[in-house]
């Protein structure tokens, strides 16, 4: 790509320039921040991996410009042929089934991944904070009801409940967010409840109450700020898991609509082709390898980052905690 063409593309997407600049600034601050410098080498590498995915997601309109007047999340196709085509000049990573361009799908898939994981963490955290906080703070019958509700939700392996919800609601990115959010909140609620229970009896809460602080004020000013930090750590550990579950839904054909830029769907599209042709087992390797590298790298980055943050938050733990 010549400089002229690059400048032209950049000019066409002011919002992308703004995002890219924000990401670059964030990366610079990350580099300077003492928190990142104090991380072990592996943790720093993880920060850069996640930052790189964020950059790709932010710069998607520049590095993979969408065709005009189309939903950018819909992967463009160039022909109606079915068979995947190996990488060439027009398709740097090749095409998968139905000529969906792998490069375009992976770049915009990074956006989808961030959109899905961040929305789900926010939804679960909000539900968990409200329900778990109320249960832990007031105790009694309310606590019992919320905890039995979490029991019911936790009676399903996460993926199974998500499959049921998506089967009933139908395909689409918003349905995935709803389904996985519904599966995830009970764990957050239980963690928040435990945290609130231990904070409830602390001196500063009693002091605030003695000064006439209302329940709402105590919750918002004293309990929530102290209870929320462990969940940011848990949330970062959860990011990798969420992207796996959402990709699994797409893999089963229950996630996004066909052609939506989503890593799980790209892997699902490769399923028919991975066995290759007789005598050429690895003929269509690119259909599975590139999406697999993208999703594994994303999950690996978040997992190592979460571990590193947790180790820093609590040096006693040099290992990963139990499954929630």
């Amino acid at each position, binding site marked *: 790509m010549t400089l002229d063409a690059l400048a032209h593309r950049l000019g066409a997407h002011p919002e992308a320039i703004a995002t890219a600049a924000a990401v670059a600034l964030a990366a610079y601050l990350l580099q300077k921040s003492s928190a990142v410098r104090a991380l072990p080498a592996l943790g720093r590498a993880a920060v850069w991996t996640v930052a790189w995915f964020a950059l790709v997601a932010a710069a998607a309109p520049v590095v993979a410009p969408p065709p005009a007047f189309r939903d950018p999340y819909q992967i463009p196709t160039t022909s109606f042929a079915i068979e995947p085509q190996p990488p060439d000049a027009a398709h740097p990573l090749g095409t998968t089934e139905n000529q969906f361009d792998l490069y375009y799908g992976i770049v915009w898939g990074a956006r989808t991944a961030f959109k899905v994981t961040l929305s789900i963490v926010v939804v679960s955290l909000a539900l968990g904070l409200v329900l778990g906080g109320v249960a832990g703070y007031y105790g009694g019958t309310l606590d019992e009801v919320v905890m*039995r*509700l979490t*029991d*019911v*939700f936790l*009676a*399903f*392996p*996460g*993926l*199974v*409940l998500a*499959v*049921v*919800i*998506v*089967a*009933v*609601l139908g395909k689409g990115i918003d349905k995935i967010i709803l389904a996985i959010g519904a599966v995830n909140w009970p764990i957050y609620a239980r963690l928040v409840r435990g945290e609130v229970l231990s904070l409830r009896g602390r001196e500063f809460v009693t002091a605030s109450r003695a000064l006439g602080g209302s329940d709402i004020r105590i919750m918002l000013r004293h309990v929530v700020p102290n209870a929320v930090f462990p969940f940011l750590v848990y949330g970062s550990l959860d990011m*990798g898991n969420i992207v*796996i579950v959402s*990709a*699994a839904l797409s*893999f*089963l*054909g*229950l996630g996004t609509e066909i052609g939506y830029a989503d890593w*799980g769907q790209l*892997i699902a599209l*490769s*399923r028919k082709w*991975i*066995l*290759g042709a007789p005598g050429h*087992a*690895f003929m269509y*390797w690119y259909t*599975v390898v590139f999406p*697999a590298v993208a*999703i*594994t790298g994303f*999950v*690996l980055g978040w*997992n*190592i980052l979460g571990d590193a943050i947790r180790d820093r938050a609590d040096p006693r733990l*040099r*290992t*990963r905690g*139990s*499954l929630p």
Partner: protein
Amino acid sequence: MTAYIVRRLCLFPLVAFGVTVLIFTLLQALPPASRAMLFIQNPEQATAIAAIIRKYDLDKPMYVQYGHWLRDVVQGNLGYSQSARMPVAQAIATFFPATLELTGYAFGLIVLVGITLGTAAAVRRDGVIDHASRIFSICGYSLPVFVWGLLLLLVFYGRLQWFPPERLSLAAGLYAQSPAFHAYTGLMTVDAVLNGSWWVLWDAVRHLVLPVVTLTYFLAATLVRITRSAVLDTLSQDYIRTARGKGLAESVVIARHARRNALIPVITLSSSILIGLLGGVVITETIFNYPGIGRWGATAALELDVPAVAGFAMLVAGVTVLVNLAADLLYGYVDPRVRLR
């Protein structure tokens, strides 16, 4: 201890009831015609949907319908699964043994790998095995199960032709259906041994290798980490110093004193592993085209086979709740500190 058991046992029906309510509430998002399938037993009845909607009050408030449905469920009438072309109860009886076989072998292998590797990593802390096990677990968390399964299929079936997908080859499948082969348990490897047909056993084992390895790799990672930290924890206890002080061989100290006490957290974890297996089979059975409840559930969800989805969800939830109950009781039995609480 009694209070602990009674509390656990009382929770069980409560959660089971909650599960049926949750599933039924979710199904309300569907039109009555889809939900009518929950109440039929054979394909002929599917032609008279309007009559079924009237008979079971599917246009009435939810609690009325729930009453009808719960009565049917308690009587074992779970509806007719169109994707499996048989009643749901029969489909569960057909597919569940295959999943049981798969998860049974995977669970055994996970426990073996997890405890051996976890102990070895803790005993030689920061040694080669420790670092290797750390990489093993990080990859286990990070490599999605469907990616791992597809890569295995690509290499060991596409390229090497060693381990084929599905449950049996065509010849063995036909033989297993024939009157000469008596199905004692529904577990193919066990039935093959009981029938003395070794070639069927070999065939079944070849088909089990890839799905079992897929499930093991994806779930053993957590067990390795937990066993490692639990053994490290016990190794610093006073009674370990006492055992060493009285001159016991290091291998005895590890096996009898350290590992045995470290197994307590491992028991709690094994229930989450079993539950993880139930979620994992949905993907694994789909990849390897293995005819178990996971593949059935996934197909049913795709084809909006409502009774099958509901039956599948209730079966999995039932097993999950039972596994949790068993783990809680076992935990109370193994750890006296829980018993005395």
